[in-house]
């Protein structure tokens, strides 16, 4: 039971971070299908720091450095989307899809090259091992493994809410996603706001990536990417109607079903059903299909999302 709670919170943290990232991007008017790829690159950045930084530096430094590295990697990677979608007015769906394909492939190549070189050719895997660093993120209360990333997600939630609703940045960002011509007419630089939205989504998506790969394991095979979690986060964002607190609730729900896949063997009645583990692993994805099919009619998506802004057309 405690294990279920622990994993629910952890996976919910991942989904919350990434979905909030998507929320910033879409609120500014840019659809970010590339979250999956941003997660992979963020995870790579964080994993490298965890692998190579000396463990002697202590937990606070390690945690800070890992988060910063993931955020930076994710943000830099999201620049691809920003440049393509905002400057070159590229199709945002296609750009995002390309980013997803590039991220997993690129990360695999990079890690394999690194491992091959380091081992003199005997290790050609795409794995990064970060056992010791991972332990620094965890504080044990009895059986419950508290993870500092849960706090990070909570802080991200609060900051997002303030940014979107309590300061002028949010008012302007949301205006750019709803009616960029209106924003432009009152002197708001739509291009800058959209850059801000996309880069914030890169930061949050990157952090989400490192949380995801360190959630249950001490090493990660980058060939696997992040198993569609970026898309799941998009579903969470839509189910949460692009609103931070609703997104948090949706993340808990989806996180719960994802956690069930990890720990269902701990529940006798589930184990006795004798279902193959694949059924549980499929649950969050199936739920997302059902939820989106049922709720997409009353969607409150930003009106101008996906449409490149062109100053000339009014």
């Amino acid at each position, binding site marked *: 039971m405690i294990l279920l709670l622990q994993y629910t919170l952890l996976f919910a943290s991942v989904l919350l971070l990434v979905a909030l990232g998507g929320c910033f991007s879409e609120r500014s008017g840019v659809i970010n299908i590339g979250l999956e790829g941003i997660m992979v690159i963020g995870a790579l950045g964080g994993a490298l720091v965890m692998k190579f930084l000396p463990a002697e530096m202590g937990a606070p430094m390690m945690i800070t450095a890992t988060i910063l590295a993931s955020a930076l990697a994710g943000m830099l990677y999201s620049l691809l989307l920003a440049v393509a979608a905002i400057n070159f007015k590229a199709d945002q769906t296609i750009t995002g899809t390309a980013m997803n394909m590039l991220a997993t492939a690129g990360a695999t190549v990079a890690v394999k090259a690194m491992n091959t070189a380091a081992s003199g050719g005997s290790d050609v895997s795409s794995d990064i091992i970060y056992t010791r660093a991972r332990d620094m993120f965890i504080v044990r209360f009895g059986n419950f493994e508290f993870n500092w990333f849960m706090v990070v997600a909570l802080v991200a939630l609060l900051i997002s809410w303030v940014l979107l609703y*309590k*300061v*002028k940045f949010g*008012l*302007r960002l*949301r*205006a750019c996603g*709803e*009616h960029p*011509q*209106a*924003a*432009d*007419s*009152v*002197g*708001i630089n739509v291009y800058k706001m959209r850059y801000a939205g996309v880069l914030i989504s890169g930061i949050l998506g990157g952090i989400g990536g490192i949380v995801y790969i360190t959630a249950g394991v001490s090493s990660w095979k980058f060939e696997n990417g992040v198993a569609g979690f970026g898309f799941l986060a998009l579903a969470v964002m839509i189910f949460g109607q692009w609103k931070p607190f609703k997104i948090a609730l949706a993340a808990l729900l989806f996180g719960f079903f994802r956690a069930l896949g990890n720990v269902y063997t701990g529940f006798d009645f589930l184990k006795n059903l004798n279902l193959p583990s694949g059924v549980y692993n499929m649950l969050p994805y199936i739920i997302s299909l059902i939820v989106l099919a049922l709720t997409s009619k009353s969607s*409150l998506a930003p*009106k101008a999302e996906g449409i490149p802004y062109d100053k000339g057309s*009014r």
Partner: protein
Amino acid sequence: MEQYAVEMLHITKRFPGIIANDDITLQLKKGEIHALLGENGAGKSTLMSVLFGLYTPEEGEIRMDGQAVKIRNPNDANARGIGMVHQHFKLVECFTVLDNIIMGVEPTNKLGFLQKKHAREKVLAMSEKYGLHVNPDALISDITVGMQQRTEILKMLYRENDILIFDEPTAVLTPQEIDELMQIMKNLAAEGKSILFISHKLNEIMAVADRCSVLRKGKYIGTVEIKNTTKAELSRMMVGRDVKFAVDKEEAKPADVVMDVQHMTVASKQHDNDAVRDVSFQVRRGEIVCIAGIDGNGQSELVFGVTGLEPLKSGKITMCGQDITKAPIRKRSTSGMSHIPEDRHKHGLVLDYTLEDNMVLQRYFEPQFTNGIGFLKRGAIHAYAEKLIDQYDVRSGQGAVTVARSMSGGNQQKAIIAREIDKDPELLVAVQPTRGLDVGAIEYIHQQIVAQRDAGKAVLLVSLELDEVMNVSDRILVMYEGEIVGEFDPKKVTVEELGLYMAGAKREGVAQ
């Protein structure tokens, strides 16, 4: 010398192949309402874009309070106190009125948090002062178009702009709202604001403006004092010839019923309520029946139901004695229904087809255009299109092979009218046939519609323009929230009376 708030002196703005503004001078006095009159394409928008810093003119200068100024972008214009109510409102629908007003100049405390309380009081004080009634906490999507416009005006006032530009502000308003707007504009001018009022509606200019400058084909024609001029003179300046306002037509001689609509109900795509509710009416040979109403009261859906673009939820439509309730669109077309659609780009033309292909969209399968084994007779199609182009004076770059997209709106509309009238219909359904067109083209289209009536056709006209409603129709049905709330003889009703019905303030039990 008189003090001007803004002077635009000898402005010339060229685009490749065209001189949009040719040596234009416009002088706006402090505290006056100055109308800018001109047809579509006369250069009004370009001139305003120059004033707003969107374009840099090749020649000429702008002076404010006698000093030459450079306006490089809209922010410069705002900083100099120039504000504009755009024809299409620049409002974020899911924001409140207050959020829209403060956007871009948000008041915050030292920590950067939004402070709306003071802004709210300021907005309420201004709306009190000028009679601009709005609820600052309402969402834009929930309020009427008139209130949205008042929000736009408050946006300018909140920024303490002194020079206010209204770009065709009355196009979307009811007659009562227009009266209110006129009063508001007068109040603003009395408080020392200078107002530029862009319009091609002569009645409104005569009612509210102090002076009027006229543009025609990019050239400055002149500036007149409203109290020394007449509508006829203004229109002559605008068009370059005399224009008849009253449509010449004889008494209608309604004959047998062509279309009979009984208890028609059509669902809405926007909301759960039905867009058209239990509507019944008839259209007879030799009469023009006009559906009047404010945009969005079910007129579009009524036409969709009649023409077959949307299925009926219930009711029955009979045309020439035939039940066409469930008939497909082609069947309706071949049995004698012509449709000049509201949205000419969506339902009227295939924009990337040539003019000749567009001309035969509903008739390509007829033996005169298709041979026995299914090939199109290109020669016959071309000749037919050339004939229509000639007969209806459709102007285009390359004649019948011009791509429809490249044509001007007025000529696209003429092409549709040529096609629909040449089909020799029993019933002509014309939806806002003159929308966005200038007086010359409007005159032509009205003549065509009346000619159809006189040729014994039944005409169903849907219009948002009250002048058109009053001038062209023989019988007026007013629609409000999906129902017909009144039937009138245009000779026996006033515009004010119609307005009350259109706004839902009055209704009557309608005899069919």
